[in-house]
């Protein structure tokens, strides 16, 4: 066991994979000389050289498109976007090219490519640098979407992402990067589409993504003292979605809340509630609930920003509406 930050865990995953496979290359803004905006690539330029760890200009459409081309020629590019908001700059490459080529080529070509980028609010990054893009990309088939929770999860899932033969969007939470976690010395790749029961409970199921898993755990501690036992499911991947684990849990608890930091409207919470509805309807003892960001752009001012961000307290309050 060792204690490292979430950012270091990602760096370790990248390092271990690059060492294992020479075809892995990295592209992104400030990933080489600076070591990454959030310090996820520190030391990699020195270790693997400028050819495999490439600083790019501020041109997301350009270097994401370049990554698609590299993937088609047999490399395994890992692209870092400084903020997930910039997926929109590269949206054509991400949605129309990266996600579609296997289909458009009739399976003759595939794109073994990973895009890493941070989601979430809380750093006064304002409306254009605080968004969580998972639902938007999930709308379009062809890309797997990973929303890791802890450092260990991030490391194991990133390894799987890099080894996947198809495009993966790997969404890191920017408020997690500097948090320290106890982590095994060796972390094996974690398979996609298999959720993790982060906490067992009998009273209510909270299906959570990314840092909402930890916030839900914090809320669950408090709720447990009041006799409410939450079962927390770390979804790990949104595409593919492990509906089976959610269904089994709700059959037990009768109640489901989806906690996801993105805006509530058309968010993952709505999708999950609908996706499992057929299977859990007769087990529901209350309507499905959501904990998410309100449908307003995120403000710069922390005084305005923090009240909007889904917190442990908000999860706590939401759960309490089910136990009056």
């Amino acid at each position, binding site marked *: 066991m060792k204690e490292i930050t979430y950012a270091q865990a990602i760096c370790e995953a990248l390092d271990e994979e690059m060492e294992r496979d020479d075809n892995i290359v990295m592209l992104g803004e400030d990933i080489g000389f600076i070591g990454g905006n959030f310090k996820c690539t520190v030391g990699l330029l020195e270790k693997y050289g400028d050819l495999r760890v490439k600083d790019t200009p501020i041109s997301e459409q350009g270097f994401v498109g370049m990554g698609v081309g590299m993937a088609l020629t047999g490399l395994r590019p890992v692209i870092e976007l400084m903020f997930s908001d910039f997926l929109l700059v590269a949206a054509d490459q991400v949605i129309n090219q990266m996600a579609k080529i296997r289909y458009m080529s009739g399976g003759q070509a595939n794109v073994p490519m990973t895009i890493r980028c941070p989601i979430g609010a809380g750093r006064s990054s304002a409306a254009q640098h605080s968004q969580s893009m998972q639902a938007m990309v999930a709308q379009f088939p062809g890309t797997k979407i990973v929303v890791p929770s802890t450092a260990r999860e991030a490391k194991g899932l990133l390894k799987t992402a890099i080894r996947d033969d198809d495009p993966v969007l790997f969404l890191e939470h920017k408020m997690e990067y500097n948090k320290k976690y106890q982590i095994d010395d060796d972390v094996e790749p974690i398979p996609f589409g298999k959720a993790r029961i982060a906490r067992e409970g009998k009273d209510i199921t909270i299906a959570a993504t990314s840092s909402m898993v930890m916030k839900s755990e914090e809320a669950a501690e408090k709720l447990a003292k009041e006799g409410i036992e939450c079962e927390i499911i770390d979804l790990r991947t949104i595409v593919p979605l492990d509906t089976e684990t959610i269904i089994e849990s709700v059959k037990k608890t*009768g109640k489901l809340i989806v906690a996801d930091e993105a805006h509530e409207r058309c968010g993952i919470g709505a999708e999950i509630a609908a996706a499992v509805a057929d299977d859990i*309807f*007769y*087990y529901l*003892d*209350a309507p499905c609930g959501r904990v998410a960001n309100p449908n307003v752009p995120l403000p710069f001012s922390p005084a305005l920003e923090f009240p909007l961000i889904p917190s442990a307290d908000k999860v706590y309050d939401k759960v309490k509406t089910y136990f009056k």
Partner: protein
Amino acid sequence: MAEVIIMPKLGFNMNTGKLVEWYKNEGDTVAKGEPLFSVETDKTNMDIEATGDGVVKKLFISAGDEIPVTLPIAVVGGADEDVSAVVADAMERLQGGGAAPTASEEAKEEAAPEKEEKAEAKPAAAGGMLKITPRARRVAAENDLSLEGIELVGTGWQGGICEQDILDYLASNKVKATPVAQAMAAAEGIDLSTITGTGVNSKIMKADVEKAVSEKKAAAEKAAEEAPETGEAKFSPDGKEILEEVPYAGVRKVIGDRLSESKFTAPHLYFTQKVNLEKLLEVRKQVNGAQDKKTSVTDYIARATIIALQKYPEMNSSLVGDTIVKYKSVNLGIAVASPTGLIVPNIKDSQNMSVVELSKASSPLFEKARAGKLAISEYTGGTFTISNLGMFGIENFTAIINPPEVGILSISSTKDEPVVVTAADGSQEIAIKPMMNIQVSVDHRLIDGLLAAQFVTEIKNLLENPISLLV
């Protein structure tokens, strides 16, 4: 289409009806014309028949419940029909409680804001819909628990009934007992919920019931010993010891209310005659010897009364609003003591019936009255009443008019008395004769003393010359 069964209004004065019993349970099929329930009207118990085929979906009241007429008491619908909306509607009417539909109609609009408050107070039934979560429904179904008519306050989402409510209900309503223990407890009249089980999962065993039985016997013996000292005497506020307290309700109340209404609105006048029944008793003996149907003295008095009523039709009348209605039909009522109280079945269109015919018509009515099975038409619509207490040895009594009639004839017992008999030659002697007092009570608003005196004397004359009753 689901049909809402209402408490029927079976008489003009009937404001509430008391359910005697349901002949069908929820879930039973019922065919048109089959008896559905029995209701106690102002005077008797009546069976009400189903008006269509269907399945009894919901019963709102239980035996013994008394509710205003026209309020819903049941819903009958198709076997697979979803009647929840109809049931909810009916429940709302029941909770509204308005007796007359017209009044509740008006009240509805005024009461609208209040209804919203009610919805908050009892959210499980808000908006006329019972809120039960899908999970709760499933759990109920798995436990064979019917949610129809269940009394549950929801504690779940928005006050709905959730799984825990069902589980709590099951836990509190399920007495776990072995079949032997159940049978024993039923035989001994012991409530299982009062027994603490000693079996697995607190299951009540045979031994537990035996123990309860012996405890009950011991307690009863102890109570019997202590009774003379402590007693359970109840006293009125002013110190009178009370034997029994009975509610003034039902048939007793109907009788009481009607008689006081009669006595307080109709000024009564009374006229008495003494009748010599010597000839009549002789005629009756001959008539009963000549044919099978045994006639009673009452039958002859009935016939005499009918003849007198036809001679004095003012006595065969009613005050209807501002109009005095004199009837050609004589529906002669004869008072009968029934188990639930006094009732007066009447013989319809008795004006042309002979004594034997009257006897034949009245016997089944008396039987039905004593069994409490009279149809409503058999005790309403009378035009005059006779009340015979002769069989109880009464010397003389005064009856209260049965409204809306204007007169009633009281008949006392026949007793041998010394009477002065005047012979054709004018000579007088004292003889022993069977004598009977008859008294007419009349409503002085319509009937004056002279008419009443003529009427009662006419009856006396008819009874003393009984041949006129037979021709």
